[in-house]
């Protein structure tokens, strides 16, 4: 589901290894040098097992084989970390079977272990980061304690695959470790590796440049990283895809011990199974993470024989894709080749990859390219949805409209290429409710459906077959179609099981709580009211200028759109009036013509009446055109802007939560200080625990916030782009219609002219 998945999954390995390692050989067997094969192999073997267990992904993989391979690899680790794994790796990519993959995982592990061993030499590098750690200093006193605690926590959590806790635990775990380093030399040895492994991703990247050997190992690691990710995904049943990342990502999160913020940004979106937009993050930071990743990816492509930056993007994306689509198919093609075929994550991939290779300035270029790619994507991304045949079902006030939703797609995630379901309006609303509940808090812009219209629907229900109700139904139908199209064109919303269910399943449980007047509706209203109040009370001192500007922009755009909508609606009304008046004029002209006793004039007048009749039709069409191409477009965007603001609000809420947590932490700290002063050790312990808890929360909330921020940012960028495209298309469409009607007009009048001239 995510571009960044690979990095994420790798870190998860990294993370998992060291902890398990630590647990299994708790600080007793420090491996200080590379030559010590034994520990390494041990480390390797055990973690790998753990890994398998933890992830549950490799359930079907032959563990034995894995272990044996592992053993082989482990023995040779020091000498040939490069060769063997790389071979495996190559296999994987060309590979058809799953086994090689496992090998790779193992190899990967070994490599990492080896690298970790290396790392111990590079302690200086490793020790640097602690200074960067925000929370590091706080931990110094209790580093030891916490470390062990959290390690245990971590393992527990990992096993239980709790999505929330692991990252925190591991964070803590890593931090203390680093601190510990300076305090306890023997322990340091043991822990450094873990730290090192963690760093492998970030800091090691730097080292990679200087140390050829490490670079190589890193290469492999990188490769295996990808391979592994793939494998996980492959091993996974399709249905589980959405959940899986959630499990996995937390593990991935701890990776960024340093610059926790930035990296968590990267990891955050992952957790959502969303294509992260590390683009900004990376470019902003541009210190350690970027080069390392860049390097690794570059290396990757080299060893792969898969080449060039773009391929790496694709590569990264491929893994994502795999999770989304049919792994089998893609695997056959070979990972590097696959990605281009799968659209949704292309943009994400680019955004991920490009910033890696570049800084902010290139973002613009990226966007352009991205756009191109998106165009491309549209070609490939051929899921087309149509909403048709509105049909009234039932009678009286219980009547409702059912629409035929037809989906056409070659995407393998769907069972058939074409399928049709019948959905009623409240189903559409229900889908939105589900989606916004699930994705809204994460900062996604969930396309809103058209509003419920009691008046319009009542008219339909009453069964008046007049033009206004037909107009209403048609309008709604078109709006629903656009709504669905927006959803399926959203790369991550398309992946939502609810969406799929909505499109595919024959019978959908009746959506509840969508009635405007029901109890649920009332509750919703109250919720909205409280939201509005809290929105007013939350005063966010916006740190991000971009957001500030964007929010303002959105608000003013909203205002303008509203205004525009009113105007266009009035234009429609006037046009309809015009058409009506033209019709009556045509009639009276015809009468006048019949009353006229000059034959030629009478003829001309009746001709004029005909022309006016046609004009009436023209005006009518124009009014329809106004409505559907222009007014509806604007109405859509008014709704969408509402969603955008909603996502901004969610971001604000996340921020608020973070701030609250911080305030709470502050309070606890004060209590701690007081207790310390009062010398009450028993209570002190309790408070300390609480502090730890709150710290965890703070970091988590902060991360949440950053994640939401990143998502919102990306979503808004996407939204803007979509908007621009959409507007251009629609308005050009509209203008074309306008032109056409003018052409028609010319035709009519040209025909009339000789008639007028014929009056003698």
């Amino acid at each position, binding site marked *: 589901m995510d571009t960044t998945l690979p990095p994420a999954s790798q870190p998860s390995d990294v993370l998992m290894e060291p902890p398990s390692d630590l647990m299994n050989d708790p600080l007793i067997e420090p491996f200080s040098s590379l030559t010590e094969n034994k520990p390494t192999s041990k480390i390797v073997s055990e973690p790998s097992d753990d890994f398998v267990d933890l992830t549950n992904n490799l359930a079907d993989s032959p563990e034995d084989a894995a272990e044996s391979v592992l053993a082989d690899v482990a023995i040779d680790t020091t000498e040939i970390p490069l060769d063997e794994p790389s071979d495996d790796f190559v296999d994987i990519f060309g590979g058809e079977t799953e086994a090689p993959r496992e090998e790779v995982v193992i190899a990967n592990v070994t490599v990492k272990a080896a690298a970790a061993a290396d790392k111990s030499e590079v302690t200086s590098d490793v020790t640097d980061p602690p200074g960067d750690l925000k929370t590091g200093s706080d931990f110094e006193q209790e580093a030891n304690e916490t470390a062990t605690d959290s390690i245990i926590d971590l393992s527990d959590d990992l096993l239980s695959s709790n999505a929330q806790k692991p990252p925190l635990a591991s964070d803590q775990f890593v931090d203390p470790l680093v601190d510990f380093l300076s305090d306890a030399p023997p322990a340091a040895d043991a822990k450094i590796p873990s730290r090192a492994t963690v760093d492998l991703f970030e800091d090691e990247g730097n080292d990679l440049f200087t140390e050829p050997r490490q670079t190589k190992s890193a290469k492999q690691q990188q490769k295996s990283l990808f391979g592994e990710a793939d494998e996980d995904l492959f091993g996974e049943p399709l249905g589980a895809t959405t959940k899986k990342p959630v499990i996995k990502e937390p593990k991935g999160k701890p990776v960024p011990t340093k610059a926790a913020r930035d990296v968590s940004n990267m990891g955050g979106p992952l957790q959502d199974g969303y294509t992260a937009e590390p683009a900004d993050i990376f470019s902003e930071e541009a210190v350690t993470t970027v080069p390392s990743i860049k390097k690794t990816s570059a290396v990757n492509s080299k060893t792969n024989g898969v080449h060039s930056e773009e391929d790496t993007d694709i590569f990264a994306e491929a893994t994502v894709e795999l999770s989304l689509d049919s792994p089998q198919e893609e695997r056959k093609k070979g990972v590097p080749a696959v990605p281009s075929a799968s659209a949704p994550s292309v943009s994400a991939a680019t955004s991920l990859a490009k910033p890696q290779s570049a800084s902010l300035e290139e973002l613009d270029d990226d966007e352009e390219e991205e756009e191109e790619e998106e165009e491309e994507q549209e070609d490939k991304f051929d899921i087309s949805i149509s909403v048709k045949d509105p049909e009234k079902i039932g009678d009286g006030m219980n009547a409702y409209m059912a629409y035929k939703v037809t989906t056409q797609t070659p995407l393998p995630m769907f069972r058939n290429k074409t399928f049709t379901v019948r959905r009623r309006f409240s189903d559409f609303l229900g889908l939105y409710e589900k989606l916004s509940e699930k994705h809204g808090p994460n900062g996604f812009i969930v396309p809103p459906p058209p509003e419920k219209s009691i008046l319009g629907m009542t008219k339909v229900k009453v069964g008046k077959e007049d033009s206004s109700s037909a107009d209403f139904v048609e309008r709604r139908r078109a709006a629903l179609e656009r709504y669905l199209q927006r959803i399926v064109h959203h790369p991550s919303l398309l992946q939502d099981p609810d969406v799929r269910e909505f499109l595919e399943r024959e019978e959908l449980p009746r959506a509840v709580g969508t009635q405007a007047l029901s109890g649920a509706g009332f509750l919703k209203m109250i919720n909205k009211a409280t939201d509005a109040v809290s929105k007013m009370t939350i005063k966010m001192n916006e740190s991000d200028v971009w957001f500030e500007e964007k929010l303002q*922009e959105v608000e003013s755009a909203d205002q303008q759109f509203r205004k525009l909508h009113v*105007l266009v609606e009035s*234009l429609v009304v006037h046009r309809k009036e*015009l058409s009506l008046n033209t019709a009556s*004029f045509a009639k009276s002209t015809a009468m006048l013509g019949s009353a006229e006793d000059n034959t030629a004039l009478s003829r001309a007048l009746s001709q004029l009446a005909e022309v006016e009749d046609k004009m009436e039709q023209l005006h009518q069409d124009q009014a329809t055109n106004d409505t559907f191409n222009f007014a509806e477009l604007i109405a859509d965007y008014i709704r969408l802007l509402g969603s955008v603001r909603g996502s901004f609000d969610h971001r604000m809420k996340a921020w608020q939560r973070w701030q609250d947590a911080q305030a709470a932490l502050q309070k606890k700290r004060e209590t701690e200080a007081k207790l310390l002063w009062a010398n009450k050790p028993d209570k002190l312990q309790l408070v300390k625990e609480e502090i730890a808890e709150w710290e965890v929360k703070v970091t988590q909330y902060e991360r949440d916030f950053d994640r939401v921020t990143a998502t919102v940012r990306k979503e808004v960028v996407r939204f803007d782009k979509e908007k621009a495209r959409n507007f251009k298309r629609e308005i050009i469409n509209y203008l074309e219609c306008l*032109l056409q009607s003018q*052409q028609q007009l010319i035709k009519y009048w*040209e025909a009339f002219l000789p008639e007028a001239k014929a009056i*003698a």
Partner: protein
Amino acid sequence: MRSCYGLICGCGALWDVVSALPLQPRAVNVDLQTDATLQVDISDALSERDKVKFTVHTKSTLPNFKQNEFSVVRQHEEFIWLHDSFVENEEYAGYIIPPAPPRPDFDASREKLQKLGEGEGSMTKEEFTKMKQELEAEYLAIFKKTVAMHEVFLCRVAAHPVLRKDLNFHVFLEYNQDLSVRGKNKKEKLEDFFKNVVKSADGVLVAGVKDVDDFFEHEKTFLLEYHNRVKDASAKSDRMIRSHKNAADDINRIASSLYTLGTQDSTDLCKFFLKVSELFEKTRKIESRVAADEDLKLADLLKYYLRESQAAKDLLYRRSRALVDYENANKALDKARAKNRDVLQAETSQQLCCHKFEKISESAKQELIDFKTRRVAAFRKNLVELAELELKHAKVTMT
């Protein structure tokens, strides 16, 4: 019985006379003058607070004017006075009196302008200037139209073979002082109203009288229907044009709104918005021009003929009235003869009525024929122009 015969005889004789009359070359259009001896136009007009001053410019070779070329300043009321003097003159009963120009009505436009001034704070500067320009344009259009209506009236009079010789007309054209005509006071207006009521009631009565002349009978039914139709068409066209203008206004506002959107947007969409705004602005201009042209060519034409047909109807009414009078006089004569009393008096009045009726019939026939020619020509001209303009605008929109 005899009277009837006489009547028919009279008519027959009249018919002969009329048909014997040489058809004078006449202006085929409302404002077309073939006669160079008297040319009238409004060279200038000045709009003051509640009145419009028209500068009436005359060029004439007629001997009863002191100069060949002269101008006077006239107001709307003076035009009305001239019209009324025509209507009241018995001499002209047999002619279609050119309809009086409508009162200049700038109130709506002024009011809008004022409202705009009040609402200045609530809109952006661009919007304000745009609206102002628009209203000014509207004002100007109404002004021009008013002037044109007055001019048409004068031209019609000047082109009329009989009315052009009217003394009042000459005074109107030449007397360079204020004519000091006053508007009708309330009493007179009330009188007018009653007169109108009586007239229309009478008209209904008179209309019931079967006309002996097929031509007039036909004309009468035709005009009655035609008038109603024109009235209807005129109202409808007015509405059509109004909604057209509204649509144009909307487009204008959409354009300005898009413009604001374009200036606010930070993405590449802004240029697009600006362009679209420009496009809308253009469309607006064309649309409003189309509306204005339709207004000028279609609505004004219809309105003019609404009034003209009213005038023609009035003429027919006067004729029918005369006919009824004549018949009554005949009856009176018969009675007088039977009683052998006041025969002479009755005869004179019968003669008078007969003469009057004949005269009216004679001129009326000519007038109506002229009316038809004029109408056809005017319609032709206007419709051709309308079509051409519509084409032109549509083509402009295309580019």
